[in-house]
């Protein structure tokens, strides 16, 4: 068993921990969102982008989350596929709708930022196209899960799709380096530190942490829902057999 993944193998322990951790993360997300929005609305206009720079505080966290959630979905899928952890499939399945929502949000807010800056809502360049492919992979994953009646087979097929789709993450991240793009180049995780001024970096960092905490909270809530769904199904089956 991989160290640190034990909690996925014990539903009772998970339910006990997530019972208090989910509301704590939710409250943390609310506070961080309030502070991030306040600071984000207080930044000066950018000398090139004007007031549209404020779209960054909702666009970038959504784009980061679209990739982070997918990586978590793939890790959970791997644990479910290889180690058969009891909660791994539930964790992967629960992450998908949240990841799809973050990805759709990144695409829509990016389009709203692109129109005034680039003069177009959409361009088929590598960054935008690979992000759209990520959304299609999320939708495909959910469709595959819903398409098969046998939950074990559905989880297995969806996990394989999730692991294949993992190849798209480096394409998204490095697309602005590997190919010419209208999308701006890497400006946060670069050698020598972020290129962004601290006045923008602080609200961005706080909004990112807010999105991360919100996802953490909702992910736990959804996994708890999956555990209850399985319990309800098992009890319905037991009643039917009685």
């Amino acid at each position, binding site marked *: 068993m991989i160290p640190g993944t034990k909690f996925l193998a014990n539903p009772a322990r998970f339910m006990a921990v997530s019972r208090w951790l989910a509301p704590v993360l939710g409250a943390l997300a609310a506070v961080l969102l309030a502070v991030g929005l*306040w600071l984000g609305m207080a930044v000066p206009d950018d000398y090139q982008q004007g007031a549209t720079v*404020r779209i960054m505080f909702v666009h970038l966290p959504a784009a980061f989350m679209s990739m982070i959630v997918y990586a978590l979905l793939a890790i959970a899928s791997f644990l479910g596929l290889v180690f058969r952890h009891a909660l791994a499939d539930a964790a992967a399945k629960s992450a998908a709708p949240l990841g799809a929502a973050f990805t759709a949000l990144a695409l829509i807010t990016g389009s*709203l930022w692109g129109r005034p800056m680039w003069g177009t809502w959409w361009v088929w360049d590598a960054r935008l196209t690979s992000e759209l492919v990520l959304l299609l992979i999320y939708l495909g994953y959910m469709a595959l899960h819903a398409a098969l009646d046998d939950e074990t087979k559905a989880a297995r097929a969806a996990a394989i799709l999730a692991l294949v789709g993992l190849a798209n993450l480096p394409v998204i991240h490095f697309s602005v380096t590997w190919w010419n793009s209208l999308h701006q180049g890497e400006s946060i995780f670069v050698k020598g530190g972020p290129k962004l001024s601290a006045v923008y970096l602080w609200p961005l960092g706080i909004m990112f942490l807010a999105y991360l905490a919100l996802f953490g909270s*909702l992910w736990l809530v959804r996994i708890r829902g999956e555990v209850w769904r399985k319990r309800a199904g098992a009890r319905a089956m037991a009643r039917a057999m009685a």
Partner: protein
Amino acid sequence: MSHIPLPNLEVGRYAAFVWPAYALSALALLWMLADSLLRARRWRREAEAGPQAAPVASTDPTAQ
């Protein structure tokens, strides 16, 4: 005394892009919150309804 920056909601000619971005983000986050909570509540209720229903069904001779 430390300086607390005050928000400035004036976005000028970019209002048609900035506010929809924030409004759609708020809607998406609210949807995630509502869907997650409602889904979990529904399954919790069904899971907790099980134990009461099962003995009644198995001991009541009129139950079908």
